[in-house]
């Protein structure tokens, strides 16, 4: 078993909501990265979670930056550290809105330029910081404050966009599998160039489930096949253990959907569409892993 360092870089004084899975992720990410790390945070839940000036819950340098600017700011940091001959890790920790929507241009630019950094998107499938408005990452049928009747379009496939940039390392992760995340961050930081990790981060107030079910919700996402854990290293895809099992014997999609208030009002037709999309995604990934693509 990989030893998780005892040192804490996210201290026990955050202003996160009860059951916040993204702060759990941040705890493991910073443990994996260690103290020679700068975290770049655009506007997102983490802007709030880290605490209010002059206090902070973070024990590594954090550079807060404007919503659209995280990847570009990280480029500047990364190149400056290179100019200074320093090996400091530069990690962007951004929400889905700051990644798939307003920040995607900067993200694309930084990946195309080959910036040496790790971009982590923690995806709670809406603008959580401002009270759950829809983002491009909100799934079909989900109710948000700006899609009160459920989102009529599907979730933007961020991973295929990032994949198109052919980064040396990209992975998915889920807050319910912190050890898997820890290992992926470690591996990502051992590779030069632009790296990407996309974390599904269930959100109790946003998804409308009770706080103590936050791990269960992440596990259900993986076990139903809604969220597939994999990593792609220099183009070679590996589907990770929990998802391998889920693909062989998936839990019913309804188990994931019915536990979340945001999916209230999803019609059988929508559920069928979700199932087909999920299956298409799994098929694509399995074929890629088998080398049939």
């Amino acid at each position: 078993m990989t030893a998780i360092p005892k040192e804490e870089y996210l201290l026990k004084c955050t202003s996160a909501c009860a059951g916040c899975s993204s702060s759990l992720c941040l705890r493991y990410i910073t443990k994996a990265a260690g103290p020679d790390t700068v975290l770049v945070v655009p506007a997102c839940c983490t802007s709030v979670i880290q605490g209010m000036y002059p206090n902070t819950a973070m024990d590594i340098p954090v550079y807060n930056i404007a919503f659209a600017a995280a990847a570009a700011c990280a480029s500047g940091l990364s190149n400056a550290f290179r100019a200074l001959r320093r090996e400091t890790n530069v990690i962007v920790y951004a929400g889905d809105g700051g990644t798939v929507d307003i920040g995607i241009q900067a993200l694309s630019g930084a990946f195309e330029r080959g910036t040496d950094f790790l971009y982590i998107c923690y995806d709670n499938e809406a603008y959580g910081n401002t009270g759950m408005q829809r983002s491009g990452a909100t799934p079909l049928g989900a109710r948000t404050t700006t899609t009160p009747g459920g989102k009529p379009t599907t979730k933007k496939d961020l991973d295929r966009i990032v994949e198109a940039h052919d980064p040396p390392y990209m992975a998915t992760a889920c807050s319910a599998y912190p050890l898997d995340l820890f290992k992926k961050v470690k591996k990502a930081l051992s590779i030069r160039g632009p790296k990407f990790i996309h974390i599904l981060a269930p959100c109790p107030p946003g998804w409308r489930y009770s706080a103590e079910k936050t791990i269960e919700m992440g596990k259900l996402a993986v076990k139903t096949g809604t969220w597939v854990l994999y990593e792609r290293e220099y183009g070679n895809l590996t589907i990770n253990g929990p998802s391998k099992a889920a693909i062989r014997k998936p839990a019913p999609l309804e188990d994931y959907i019915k536990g979340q208030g945001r999916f209230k009002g999803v019609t059988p037709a929508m559920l069928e569409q979700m199932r087909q999309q999920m299956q298409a995604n799994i098929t694509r990934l399995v074929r890629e892993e088998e080398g049939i693509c």
Partner: protein
Amino acid sequence: MLTIATGNKAVAAAVKAAKPGVIAAYPITPQTEIVEQIAEYVTAGALASEYIPVESEHSAMAACIGASAAGVRTFTATSSHGLLYMHEMVHWAAGARLPIVMANVNRALGPGWNVWAEHTDAFSQRDTGWLQVFVSTVQEAYDATLMAFRIAEHENVLLPVMVNLDGFTLSHITQSLEAFDPGDFIPPVRIPHAIDVENPCVYGPLTGPADYFRFRWDIERSMRDSVGVIADVEREFAERFGRSYGPTEDYRCEDAEVVVVAMGTLGKEAEVAVDLLRQEGVAAGSMRLRWFRPFPKLDLAGRDVVVIDRDYSFGFGGVVAHSIRSTTGAEPYSVIAGLGGQEVTHEDIAGFVKTRQSGKEFWFGVNDRV
């Protein structure tokens, strides 16, 4: 080295002399030659900077912010729509107290598409907390860019500086240039609040009204301190390199009954107008306004003032005319001229002086001549 160069190449040469750690820039007419020249310096090994070819101006400034926060000297260049596109980060750079230097090649704003000189782009960034200087010759573009690093990085300033040069009229004109090694005039950069992993800090977190207010006051206090820093740096520059600069460049003002205030290349053209007027017996002088932020205190008491604005604040008036009115009490004859690269000759400027009407506004080429 004595040579000839365009305004753009002079800026690039000054950047090479200042040796930034990181340069991040996106090309735009008429600034393009600056980034091309810098890319060439870096490729040829003449400049050991990290050059980040960003995908937008917003990212250019964001990258400069990241790099400067890491503690290295940074530079970018833009123009017009590029400056407006990075506007959010222009505010951020000043708020984060980062001594970034940016060349802005002044250009009009669309629509319609217009690539020629106008100052509205720079003035749209007036309240961001950036220092702004306007230059009028190729040599001054070089000298001011070098000095910008010294001023921005001064411990009592730590604010970004924008060096403005007129699109095409100055960016593309060829004049003589003395490029030189500034030596210890440009010492290694030291940013006291640079990121230090040994002493981890959070930058720009949620901040309540009381602290936020204090940070804003700190910006203004540094802006006020910058007046003295600018004067010191310009004095040292004059002593070491022989060219003196100030908040304004005054020409035949001592006994002038009427003073023309203009910026950039129009400020130089105004000097020629003054000579014309003097030949005709009009006691004219000119004041070329160099520093726009911090805005200098001008001594215009007892004289008529003609202000040429290459800009306009719609629903209000010429930005420079109103700035002068509010800071000096003068009632200038406000001439709006040169927008979108409109041709304005020294004869035209002499005409403005001869037909001046204090307190009135005149749109050159639009209003009938009085």
